[in-house]
């Protein structure tokens, strides 16, 4: 996940202040030894596999896995004509937008109220940050348990209002369940950033608005929301990246992409086609498309999130 640190560092590098100390040590073999471990791991486990994925995306293996043929972009062409893949793309978009909206919306409301209770804010913060420490798979397990069709507490109550809950059979319910689980896990992170952003707004700005007669609701909409918009944008990108890539564990635990392919998002499809379906070329091509998406999201983040609010 791209943090604030990274944004600033890259921004500094892009702007040309190249972060070398004015006073520094002379060149020697030492700096190479210092960066060697980091670079070795980067090369062996990141850059080499990524380039392998790119290379494999241009190959098609024969049915017996004995030989492979170089086919240029055929794997990509196949993907673009594959209705299953296009569906997975659309599904991922819907899933990500809903996860981001649900978790950011909840976090925004809670932070908005929490920053009003100056003394209690830290108390509520302590009670709200727990889900961050829960592993995605575990979060999935908690929600599977609560929504277990025969035993779960929620299906039991839902029955009274006439809802027959079975996410093993109903694709929309399965989607709703993974969205809730994914959003639940991310609320804590969003809450922390929103609370920090709101607490950094000078009191004088809020007081001035209050003197002009703006009530709490009005102040929230016309003063606080615009002032924290950079945080909102930052969180939007972070949440999209989260929903795209880091929800694998939740989906794997809750639905395994099913029923049918109702919850198969892109990341899950790469895994499924590669490890279960053993379609190496197709899976590699999907990996490359995902890489392009991550690069795009990172660029958007660096390009637009930089602007800071001046009070």
């Amino acid at each position, binding site marked *: 996940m*791209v943090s604030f640190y990274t944004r600033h560092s890259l921004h500094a590098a892009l702007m040309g202040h190249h972060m070398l100390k004015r006073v520094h040590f002379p060149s020697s073999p030492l700096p190479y030894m210092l960066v060697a471990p980091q670079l070795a791991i980067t090369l062996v486990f990141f850059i080499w596999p990524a380039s392998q994925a790119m290379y494999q995306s241009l190959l098609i293996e024969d049915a017996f896995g004995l030989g492979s043929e170089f086919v240029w972009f055929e794997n990509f062409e196949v993907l673009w004509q594959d209705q299953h893949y296009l569906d997975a793309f659309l599904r991922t978009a819907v899933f990500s937008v809903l996860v981001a909206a649900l978790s950011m919306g909840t976090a925004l*409301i809670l932070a908005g109220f929490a920053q009003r209770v100056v003394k209690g804010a830290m108390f509520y913060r302590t009670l709200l940050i727990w889900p961050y*420490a829960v*592993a995605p*798979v575990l979060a999935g397990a908690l929600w599977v348990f609560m929504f277990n069709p025969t*035993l779960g507490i929620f299906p039991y109550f839902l029955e009274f209002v006439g809802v027959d809950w079975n996410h093993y059979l109903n694709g929309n319910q399965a989607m709703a369940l993974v969205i809730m689980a994914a959003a639940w896990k991310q609320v804590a992170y969003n809450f922390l950033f929103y609370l920090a952003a709101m607490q950094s707004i000078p009191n004088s700005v809020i007081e001035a608005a209050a003197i002009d007669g703006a009530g*709490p609701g009005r102040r929230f909409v016309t003063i606080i929301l615009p002032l924290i918009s950079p945080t909102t944008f930052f969180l939007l990108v972070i949440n999209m990246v989260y929903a795209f890539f880091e929800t694998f564990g939740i989906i*794997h635990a809750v639905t395994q992409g099913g029923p049918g392919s109702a919850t198969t998002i892109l990341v899950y499809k790469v895994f499924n086609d590669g490890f279960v379906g053993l379609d190496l070329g197709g*899976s*590699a091509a999907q990996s490359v498309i995902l890489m392009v998406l991550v690069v795009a999201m990172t660029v958007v983040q660096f390009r637009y999130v930089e602007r800071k609010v001046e009070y």
Partner: protein
Amino acid sequence: MVEDRPLTSILTHFVLILGVIAIALPIWITFVAATHDELRMNQVPLPLWPGTHLLDNLTQTLFGAGLSGSQGAPVWLMLLNSLAMAMMISFGKIAISLLSAFAIVYFRFPFRMTCFWMIFITLMLPVEVRILPTFEVVANLGMLNSYWGLSIPLIASATATFMFRQVFLTVPDEMLESARIDGAGPMRFFFDILLPLSRTNIAALFVILFIFGWTQSFWPLLITTDTSMTTIVMSIKQMLEAAEQSPQWNIIMTTALLARIPPIFVVISMQKLFVQGLTETDK
């Protein structure tokens, strides 16, 4: 609060308490499940209030047979595996990031910016997008089913490197000047001056990285087939599969409880460092 109106104040706390309940509910319900016996956990509706079997469940999960019919590793071994993995990832990331940030900030050497960009690229390559080839590399290196395989591929870190770079840039130049006058070499300067100055940042990063390491499930799932290398988080997934035949939710949820206690404890007890690690920006 700017104005003090009791009604808004009540509304504020009401919404916040509602929020806390909604967020904590999954944690509560699964905690309750860990305090009842198997019989009760198969009766609808499931309990919302704790029972008396927490100790029994804990003993059975930790030291007993665990989930009946499973040939998995004992849960205490899984906890140990998780701890080892989380620790190796945290310390590994911190160590190699400190060193590379030191090199990039304090030395002028050919290919310095190449190194910087190569480290940066790791941000754009989450493991999910290079699954198969990374798995092949680990397999070819003979690192499947080992602590090394669990941790080393995850310890490259652009984020940590950039953070330490940021920290080092705030260290006044006079520090280095006077250290050199005193005859201190680069490594001496690193250990005696830079490390102590970055103490809080290291601690804050450790909190974040420990949680990152502990909650990994995708990577361990791929590269461990040997049950003795199972981590507690990935065991949950296997238990869920077993639950489809014979639901022993009390044991599954006791395991889930054990799996989340360490990271939750870290977050709550080191909350200040945790928040600093997550949100600290301009240093």
